[in-house]
């Protein structure tokens, strides 16, 4: 039998018969049974005779796929897939809304509009549409009677589909291969691949099943779609059970606007069934991605994904990784950079999925700044640099962007991730350097952000980075950077930083380079830490470096370095963070010539030092290799040396001197360690030409003096506070002892005290009780009492550069204190208004000393001399001469320039030292006799000036005998058998004051010192000054008396030679004593007058009507000694 039908007779349930016979309607089963020789690979069937054929076709496609599954023709599967794509676009409306437009077509109003056009063509179309919409069969078949509106969707101005009352959504017949819509699982809409519902984004599936639950007659209305959903749900049961359960737990309330957003003003399908869209991503909607950055620091709503170009999409354990709600597709083209703001980014490989992600360029800079030295790993994070086979010793600034710190901390950066460093540099032999940043992502994995920086070309070829290809470029810049101090300050410690930037980009290619530093705390990279000020001490030129000093008063975590606002990098100091427990005491002896600082901690006293364990200046460059001189030296010159220690290159006591930048402007703010600094290199090297040294700080009458003193002390206190913190000291418990000379006027003392207090508050702490003021005279007593057994009846004589302080203890009670401006400077200085050209010592020894320096190649010292000499201040020059004995460079050369010994061996000047020493003892003895005191048992000597005693004679007993002789002559009585003991600290007499202060850090008020102060006016042997003895009241008769007293003293001294041969005992030249005596007696009055004039000059700064603060006895002698030295020198 042969029936003329398309179905295979054997496979059809249809009847077999002959002729025209009554068979059965071709219902779905019979239709499906029609074999399709082409497998549905052809074009989409277009034979549905309805204008709404496209909707019907979609429905047919669902039916075929439902019934035949994979055996359904490709064309049908494709229509189903495309309709689901349309649905998914509605679901993701907000993601694509920039490109899509939804148009509402209303079956009543729009048809009426068409009819209203009165165009016959339009009317015919309208009538046809109307007929199909209203005709009973079609209306039922298409559910037209249940829907009022059809929503059409346009993508990039082209219609791609719409809503359908049959299948919810349907697609256009036009080819949509041109579209570029990619869903969050990487599926490209409308592509040739078929993606069934069960393999689509889970949220989308939940949405669709939720919609079904919410609409009671869904299955009856969208019959084929619903059947399709059932089939897919069944697949989920075995393939994605969790989703299966989730869908089965949906109820009629799962699909509403608490979970979803409306689209526009709200779209509805059949019978008001709303078509919602997915909720716009917010922090509350988690996405599941294995690429999510693992950070607890990030504060943004959504943690970005870290995406690496070329990532394989598998973990280290070769497990596939989820990208964005779906597996990562290896071909996803992750760019190396994305210009958009992170929050505006759309995920690569997907369309318009606005979700933050990070790529290599977010964390790594396009340029890599190479330093001309290796990084000092002790003080700065060097990025775990591996030199590899690269032969040069270089270093690199971390090419990190500060964005990094929005996600991670510095501590993270220095850690390992899965056994590998988070950050790493490695150079190849060619110099090409790779920076690798390993970003932790969830589940313990990491992503590698890697950038290769091409080698630096010396030829200046303008290589530029290509971010599209991830090609970075190395730039080499010559600069130094120093951080002072490398400490993180605690809450009660006012942070005080200096950052020195030394710009040595002075080649023609780089001369125009500009540097900028910004400081950040890692918890807020949006705002840089305020910079108090930036001081440029020197501007660069083709020969010279530029030095800039940043002053910061806030803690910070890292520095962003920018060159020309184009090359950037991050500098991360390794801050010291010791716990603060120890108690430190410091004593600061701010002397005329030298300053000494002594400190005590854990019961040990020692001079202030900075050793390798508590370096205060952290230099970016490693000391392992030679770094170009300008960079190296600037730190020592303008900030502070790394090491200061006894017998070191730099040590305390040191010269009292301030280095002041020529750019310092006292009308504006001036900062220590920026505009000015303590030049530890002084007397060791010439100061930089842009610096000027200020000596004579203590007694200068310069207008700027007070400020300079403050800056000097501030600088010292900065060193002190850093010392404390770096050694675990508690700043608030720290005691500072400072000293003042008894000869200081109260008004000057108060000014000093104010300076000290303000500096203490600023640098140390609020408890001013820890700031101890002591008399320079008293302190040494405490020291010798504890170390030399000089416990009673002691006279302590502190001979400094400018003043000599004497305190007399009767028993253990200090009963009289006197102080006068007659000290080492009286010997070595320039008298009244003279200079080094007339200074005998300078003229006597300078050639010899210079000769030794130059012969031995001590160029720095020679330069230092040449920088000091032109100012013709003999005290400075002589101080330089003295300093050479302890200079490390000199010692290292194994040569001796021992100025003290040179003086000691030069007999013609001995008489000067005799006169100096004798005058002090004579004055002391006269006072004690006038006060009816007993002759002292002990004389202790301290102060730099006491070194002159060593010049006089190295033999202590000789000096004791000579001293005894003077006392016995004045007192007209003999010492008993106990005699007189002279106590020195020959090695470092300066330290006695400080050590004494530390032994007994008890404040002595100016008043308590003033009360025992006794000043023998100098007009006779028993008149002491009182409050009314004012400088203005000195009469010419008084002057005459002083001159005669001086004359009396000179006679007295020379008379001693008869009993105590100066030549025998002291080795003084014998031949010229008469001449010397004659010279001494000359010009006494003139010298006295000069001395008084100088005093008045000083007082002008304060108030000239002051009570006299010192004896006038020494005024002539200062001039006499200066002239004497000059004359002796002339007589060679």
């Amino acid at each position: 039998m042969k029936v003329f039908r398309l179905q295979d007779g054997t496979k059809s349930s249809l009847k077999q018969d002959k002729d025209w016979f009554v068979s059965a309607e071709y219902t779905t089963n019979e239709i499906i049974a029609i074999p399709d020789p082409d497998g549905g690979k052809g074009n989409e069937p277009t034979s549905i005779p309805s204008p709404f054929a496209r909707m019907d076709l979609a429905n047919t496609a669902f039916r075929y796929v439902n019934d035949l599954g994979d055996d359904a023709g490709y064309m049908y599967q494709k229509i189903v897939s495309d309709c689901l794509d349309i649905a998914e676009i509605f679901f993701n409306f907000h993601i694509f809304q920039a490109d899509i437009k939804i148009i509402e077509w209303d079956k009543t109003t729009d048809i009426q509009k068409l009819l209203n056009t009165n165009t016959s063509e339009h009317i015919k179309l309208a009538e046809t549409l109307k007929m199909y919409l209203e005709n009973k069969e079609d209306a039922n078949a298409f559910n037209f009677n249940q829907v009022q509106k059809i929503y059409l969707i346009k993508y990039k101005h082209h219609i791609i589909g719409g809503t359908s009352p049959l299948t919810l959504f349907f697609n256009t017949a036009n080819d949509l291969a041109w579209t570029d819509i990619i869903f969050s699982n990487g599926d490209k809409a409308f592509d040739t691949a078929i993606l069934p519902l069960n393999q689509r984004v889970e949220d989308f599936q939940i949405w669709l099943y939720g919609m079904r639950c919410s609409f009671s007659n869904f299955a009856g209305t969208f019959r084929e779609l619903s059947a399709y959903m059932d089939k897919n749900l069944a697949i989920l049961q075995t393939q994605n059970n969790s989703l299966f359960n989730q869908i089965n737990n949906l109820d009629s309330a799962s699909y509403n606007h608490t979970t979803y957003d409306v689209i526009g003003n709200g779209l509805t399908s059949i019978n008001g069934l709303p078509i919602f869209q997915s909720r716009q991503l917010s922090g509350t909607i988690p996405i599941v991605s294995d690429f999510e950055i693992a950070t607890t620091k990030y504060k943004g709503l959504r943690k970005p994904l870290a995406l690496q170009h070329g990532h394989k999409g598998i973990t280290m354990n070769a497990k596939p990784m989820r990208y964005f709600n779906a597996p990562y597709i290896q071909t996803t083209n992750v760019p190396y950079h994305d210009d958009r703001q992170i929050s505006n980014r759309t995920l690569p490989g997907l369309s318009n999925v606005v979700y933050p992600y990070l790529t290599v360029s977010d964390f790594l800079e396009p340029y890599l700044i190479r330093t001309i030295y290796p990084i000092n790993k002790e003080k700065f994070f060097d990025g775990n640099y591996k030199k590899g086979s690269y032969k040069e010793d270089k270093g690199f600034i971390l090419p990190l962007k500060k964005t990094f710190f929005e996600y991670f901390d510095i501590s993270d950066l220095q850690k390992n991730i899965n056994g590998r460093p988070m950050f790493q540099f490695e150079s190849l032999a060619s110099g090409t350097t790779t920076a690798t940043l390993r970003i932790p992502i969830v589940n313990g994995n990491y992503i590698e952000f890697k950038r290769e920086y091409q080698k630096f070309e010396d030829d200046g070829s303008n290589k530029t980075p290509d971010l599209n290809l991830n090609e970075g470029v190395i730039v080499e810049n010559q600069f130094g950077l120093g951080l002072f101090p490398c400490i993180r300050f605690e809450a009660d410690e006012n942070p005080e930083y200096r950052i020195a930037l030394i710009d040595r980009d002075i080649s023609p290619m780089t001369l125009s380079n500009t540097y900028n530093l910004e400081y950040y705390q890692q918890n807020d990279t949006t705002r840089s830490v305020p910079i108090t000020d930036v001081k440029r001490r020197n501007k660069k030129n083709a020969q010279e470096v530029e030095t800039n000093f940043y002053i910061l008063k806030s803690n910070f975590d890292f520095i962003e370095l920018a060159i020309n606002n184009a090359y950037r990098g991050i500098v991360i100091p390794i801050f010291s963070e010791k716990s603060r427990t120890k108690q430190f005491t410091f004593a600061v002896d701010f002397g005329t010539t030298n300053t000494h600082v002594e400190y005590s901690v854990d019961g040990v006293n020692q001079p202030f030092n900075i050793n390798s364990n508590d370096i205060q200046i952290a230099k970016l460059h490693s000391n392992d290799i030679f770094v170009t001189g300008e960079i190296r030296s600037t730190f020592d010159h303008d900030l502070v040396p790394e090491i200061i220690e006894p017998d070191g290159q730099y040590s305390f006591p040191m010269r009292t001197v301030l280095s002041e930048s020529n750019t310092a402007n006292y009308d504006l703010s001036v900062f220590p360690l920026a505009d000015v600094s303590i030049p530890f290199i002084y007397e060791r090297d010439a100061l930089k030409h842009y610096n000027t040294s200020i000596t004579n700080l203590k007694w200068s009458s310069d207008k700027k003096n007070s400020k300079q003193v403050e800056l000097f002390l501030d600088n010292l206190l900065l060193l002190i506070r850093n010392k404390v913190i770096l050694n675990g000291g508690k700043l608030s418990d720290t005691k500072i002892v400072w000293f003042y000379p008894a000869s200081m006027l109260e008004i000057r003392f108060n000014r000093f005290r104010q300076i000290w207090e303000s500096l203490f508050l600023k640098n140390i702490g609020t408890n001013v009780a820890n700031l101890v003021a002591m008399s320079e005279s008293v302190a040494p007593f405490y020291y010798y009492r504890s170390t030399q057994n000089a416990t009673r009846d002691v006279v302590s004589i502190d001979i400094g550069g400018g003043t000599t302080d004497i305190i007399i203890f009767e028993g253990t009670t200090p009963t009289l204190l006197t102080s006068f401006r007659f000290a080492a400077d009286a010997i070595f200085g320039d008298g009244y208004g003279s200079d080094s050209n007339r200074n005998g010592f300078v003229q006597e020894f300078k050639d010899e000393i210079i000769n030794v320096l130059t012969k031995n190649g001590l160029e720095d010292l020679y330069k230092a001399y040449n920088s000091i000499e032109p100012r013709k201040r003999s005290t400075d020059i002589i101080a330089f001469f003295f300093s050479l004995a302890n200079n490390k460079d000199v010692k290292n050369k194994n040569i001796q320039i021992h100025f003290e010994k040179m003086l000691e061996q030069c007999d013609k000047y001995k008489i000067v030292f005799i006169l100096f020493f004798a005058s002090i003892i004579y004055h002391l003895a006269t006072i004690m006799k006038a006060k009816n005191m007993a002759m002292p048992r002990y004389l202790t000597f301290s102060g730099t000036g006491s070194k002159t005693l060593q010049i006089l004679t190295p033999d202590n007993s000789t000096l004791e005998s000579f001293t005894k002789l003077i006392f016995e002559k004045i007192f007209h009585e003999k010492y008993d058998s106990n005699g007189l003991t002279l106590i020195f600290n020959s090695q470092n007499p300066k330290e006695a004051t400080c050590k004494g202060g530390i032994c007994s850090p008890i404040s002595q008020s100016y008043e308590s010192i003033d009360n025992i102060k006794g000043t023998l006016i100098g007009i006779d042997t028993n008149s002491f000054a009182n409050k009314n003895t004012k400088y203005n009241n000195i009469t010419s008769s008084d002057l005459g008396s002083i001159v005669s007293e001086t004359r009396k003293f000179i006679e007295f001294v020379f008379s001693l030679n008869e009993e105590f041969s100066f030549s025998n005992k002291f080795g003084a030249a014998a031949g010229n004593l008469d001449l010397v005596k004659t010279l001494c007696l000359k010009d006494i009055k003139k010298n006295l007058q000069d001395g008084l004039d100088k005093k008045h000059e000083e007082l002008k700064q304060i108030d000239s009507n002051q009570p006299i603060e010192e004896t006038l006895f020494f005024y002539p002698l200062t001039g006499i000694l200066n002239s004497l030295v000059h004359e002796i020198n002339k007589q060679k």
Partner: protein
Amino acid sequence: MAKLFIFGIGGTGSRVIKSLSMILASGVSLGDNIDEIVPIIIDVDKGNEDLTRTIEILKNYEAIHSKVASNANYKGFFQTKQTNLYPISGNEYRLTIQDVQGKTFGQYIDYQTQTGAQKDLTNLLFSGNQDDKGKPKPLLDMDMAIGFQGNPKLGCVVLNQFKGNNDFDTFAANFVQGDRIFIISSIHGGTGAAGFPLLLKNLRNADVPTPNSALLRSAIIGAITVLPYFQLKDGDIKSADFISKTKAALQYYLKNVNPSLNSMYYIGSGSNTHNYENNKGGTAQKNDAHFVEFAGAMSIVDFALQSDIMIASQGNRFLEFGIDDFTNGIDFSVLGNASNGIIKKPLIQYHFFKMYLDYQLRKSINCQPWSNRGKVKITKDFINPTSGFYQILDSFNKRFGEWVNEMALNDPHFTPFNQDAHLLNSISNNPPKDSFMNFWKTNYSLFDDYLNAAERNIGNTTAELKFIELFNKATSNLFTQRYN
């Protein structure tokens, strides 16, 4: 007595009507229910050669019928009355579809001036492309002068002109109680596939001012939907799509068409079909006649033969057509009894008639008694004029011959007649019963004997009727005596 309005939509409609004309020409009776057919062709493709041939055949049929069937009791060749509703020359039998010539679909619906959501909807509903010489061409740009090229969704818009269409109203006005409607269309094409459901909707939803709208709404309507039975050679219309289109359309019919029909005839052929030249339309579209079209025409006969009562009692009837298995070709031996009962005798008669006209008429005319005898003689004058009855008959018979030959050569071959055999042996698989008795006579001598015998029974009538009646009777006797 009632009329059967036969709508032939598109190319398939024309071809089935052609087959029907041949069957009716052979004298097949449509029974007691129908005594008049009214063919109405709906085709926008004016230049279609199938259409042109069919119109010619219909005109000739009607001309012949009018000469021979003036008597209502006439039985025989061309007995069924056929009416042309549309007498305007050049548009005979055709319901005119307006505004399609030289227009694209877009122009037809004036897409350009549409605005807003409507324009977008139009865009979506009529999305897609049509292959145009290897290049895709948007449907909206499609030229409709040659039909809808497999896009019934366009067709249903363009063809929706019945309401208010004069030609349609003429049809409706002629429709009276008892009349029936039959619709022929193919399912996979453009015009037929679109026009059929649309026509059906217009009939079932007919309303004033359409004349007799109530009658139309309740009319007995039958239809044949011709499923694919041939494959086109590679060309514009992808034959690969036929099946898909068919299935989609069948599905649509399920809800939208079938419920509105009284009888639905399905026919198609799944395999072993001949590749047709692929022409979209126009003069080039001339498809060889096919057995399926013949069977399709038979469905109309079947429909006509069903009584109103039977149709009413059976509800929606769905019919298919079957024959016995065959190997080389189809002939009467494999047709079912019912079919043979309707068709075998008339078709063989007409076959003999035509054979005689082709091979013997000029030899016997003026010689044989049937020509010379009686009051009305059939002489050479009857057949010689350049115009006149015989020429019309001759033209018709040429088409009949073509039709037979084409079906024989088509796949499957329909070869009821063996053209190479002698007259009496030319019925395939059906030799004459008693051939030995007349072995001395040539075939045509015997035929002449039958004609001469028949002549005696023909009364006083016209030459045309006498001529046809001679053959009616002679062939009837020949068949009855020697083949039945």
